[in-house]
C-alpha cells in the first residue's frame, strides 16, 4: 500500500509538472507567433482599422486588394526577380566552390592542410565592417558599383567559411573505405568527389543551400552599399524604399513584408529537417 501511494503521488506530481511545462511552452508559442499573425492581420485591414482600439484581429472587411496594391505601387515583381537572380547565382557559386574546398579538407592529405583549415575558421570571426569600406573601394575601382558582381562574385571564391566548415564536418562522417573502393575501381580523386561524396552528401548540401537562400534573400547592408539604380534593387532595398515613402500605409507595408517573408518561410517549412540538422551539426548559427 505504502509503495502504491508513493508512486501515485509521484505520478500526480509528474502530471502537475507536465501540465505546467505545456502551459509555459504554449504561452511562449503564442508570443512567438503573435508578430506574424499581427503582420498578416494588418495586411488585410482598411487604413482606419489599423489604428482602431480595441484591437481588431480578424479584419472586417478583409481587404485582399492590399496585396496587389502593395505589389504595384513599387515594381516589387522586379525586385523579387532581381533578388531571386542574385540568390541563385550565390547558391551555385558558394555550394560548388565551398564543397570543393571542403572535400580537400576532409579527404585529401596535403601539407598545410591544418593551417589552412584554421585560417578558414578564423574568417568566421572576421566582422564584415572591417572589410566593408576597402571592399567597396576595391569594387569601385573595378567599376563594379551598381552591378550585381560585388554581391555574387565573392560567392564563387569559397563563399562563407561557415559553408566550408559544415560540409567538411559532414564529409568526415562518410566512410573513407568508399573512397578506397572507388579508387581501386579506377576512379580518380576528383571522381571520388563527384561520384561518391557529393551524391552521399545531399542532406548537407541542402542545408547549405537553405542557409544561403535565407541569408541572401534578406541581406540588406551589402545591397544597400552597392546598388543605386532603383531598377536593380533587391527585395530588402525595395521594402526600405517603400517604408521610406509610404510611412503611414501600414496595411500596404505589412502586405509587402508578408510577401517578402513568404519564400523564406516556405523554404524553412519544406526544408526544416535540413535546417535543424545544420544548426545542430555545426552549433554555429544563432
Amino acid at each position, binding site marked *: 500500500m505504502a509503495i502504491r501511494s508513493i508512486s501515485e503521488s509521484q505520478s500526480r506530481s509528474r502530471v502537475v509538472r507536465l501540465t505546467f511545462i505545456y502551459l509555459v511552452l504554449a504561452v511562449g508559442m503564442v508570443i512567438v507567433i503573435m508578430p506574424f499573425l*499581427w503582420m498578416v492581420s494588418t495586411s488585410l485591414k482598411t487604413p482606419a482599422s489599423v489604428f482602431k482600439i480595441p484591437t481588431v484581429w480578424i479584419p472586417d472587411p478583409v481587404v485582399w486588394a492590399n496585396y496587389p496594391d502593395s505589389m504595384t505601387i513599387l515594381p516589387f515583381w522586379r525586385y523579387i526577380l532581381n533578388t531571386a537572380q542574385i540568390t541563385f547565382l550565390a547558391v551555385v557559386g558558394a555550394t560548388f566552390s565551398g564543397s570543393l574546398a571542403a572535400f*580537400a579538407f576532409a579527404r*585529401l592529405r596535403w601539407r598545410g592542410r591544418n593551417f589552412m583549415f584554421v585560417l578558414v575558421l578564423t574568417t568566421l570571426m572576421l566582422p564584415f*565592417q*572591417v572589410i566593408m569600406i576597402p571592399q567597396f573601394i576595391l569594387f569601385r575601382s573595378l567599376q563594379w558599383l551598381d552591378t550585381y558582381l560585388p554581391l555574387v562574385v565573392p560567392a564563387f571564391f569559397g563563399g562563407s567559411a561557415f559553408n566550408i566548415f559544415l560540409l567538411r564536418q559532414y564529409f568526415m562522417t562518410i566512410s573513407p573505405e568508399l573512397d578506397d573502393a572507388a579508387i581501386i575501381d579506377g576512379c580518380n580523386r576528383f571522381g571520388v568527389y563527384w561520384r561518391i561524396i557529393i551524391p552521399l552528401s545531399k542532406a548537407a548540401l541542402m542545408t547549405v543551400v537553405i542557409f544561403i537562400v535565407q541569408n541572401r534573400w534578406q541581406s540588406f547592408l551589402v545591397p544597400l552599399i552597392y546598388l543605386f539604380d532603383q531598377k536593380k534593387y533587391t527585395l530588402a532595398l525595395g521594402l526600405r524604399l517603400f517604408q521610406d515613402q509610404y510611412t503611414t500605409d501600414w496595411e500596404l507595408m505589412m502586405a509587402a513584408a508578408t510577401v517578402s517573408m513568404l519564400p523564406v518561410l516556405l523554404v524553412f517549412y519544406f526544408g526544416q529537417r535540413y535546417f535543424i540538422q545544420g544548426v545542430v551539426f555545426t552549433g554555429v*548559427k544563432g
Partner: protein
Amino acid sequence: MATLQDQIAVNATRRQRPWYYLNGEERLAWLLVLPWIIGFLAFQLGPMLASLGLSLTEWRMFTPPRFIGLSNYAEMISGDPLVLQAFKVTTIFSVTSVPLRIALGVLVALLLNARVRGLAFIRTVYYLPATVSGVAVAMVWLLILNGDFGLLNRTLSLIGIEGPYWLTDTSTVLASFVLMSLWSVGAGIIIYLAGLQGVPNELYEAAEVDGAGDWVKFWRITLPMISPVLFFQFVIGMIDALQEFAGPFIMTQGGPGNASLFVMLYLFRQGFEFFQMGYASALAWVLFVYIMVLTLLIIRSSAVWVYYEGEVRED
C-alpha cells in the same frame, strides 16, 4: 625490421623532397582550395590591410587620400563624442541581449527536454522567427512597438499598464531592441536542446542515488555539461550583436538623440553618407579590436566557467 627500414626510407625521401614539390593528391588539394585562397586574399585579407592603411589618411572619395598619421584615431578619442556614445550603446545592447538570449534559450530547451509530446512541431514554431530577418522584420516590429497603436502597448493596456513610446523614448529604445532580439532565440534553442540530449543519463542517476534534487542536478550536472555549448554561443552571439545594423537603421536611424546610435550605423554614416573613408576605416578598426578584446576576455574567463570532459581540475 623491414618496417623500420621502410620508415627510415620514407623519412629520408620526405626530407629530400623540397617543400615546393607536390604529389598528385597535394596538387589537387591546393587546386580545390585555390578559389577560397584567392577570395580570402582579394576580398578579405587584402581589404583588411588596405583599411589599416586607409585609417591613416583623410579621404573623401573624390580627392586623393592624404596621409595624416594617427589623427583619425586622435579625433575619435578627443574630438568626436559620438564615437564614445556609439560604443556605449552597442556595448549595453550586446551585454544585455546576448546573456538574456542564452538564458531564455536554455530555459525553453530545458522545458522541451522534458520528453514533451509534439516536440517537432513546438520546435518548428520556436525556430520560425530565426528564419526571417532584416527589413521586413524591422517593419513588423516598428508596428508592434508603436507607442499609440502598437500591439505591445495594446496588450499592456489590457492589464492596465500604459506602455511607453518604446522607440522614441531615450530610456526604452535600447530595451526595445533587446526585446526584439529575444524574439529570435530559436536557433539557440535547437543547439541547447542537442546539448542537453547529449548529457549522459548515468550522471543524473548517480546524483539521484546521492539524493540530489532537480535544482542541484541543474546547477551541478546540466549546466557544467552544456557549458562548452553556451560558451561558443556566447562568443558568436557577441560578435553578431556588436554588428547590429538593419534594425536601428530602419527603425530609429540612431535616434532619439543618438540613444540607439549603434557603431555599425555610425560607421555606415561616416563612410557612405559623409564619404569620410579614412575616418570610417579607423572606426572599423577600433570596432574590430574591441570585438577581439571582448572575445579574448570571454575566452580567458571560460577557464573558470566552462567545463570540458576529461579535464583535470585542481580545486
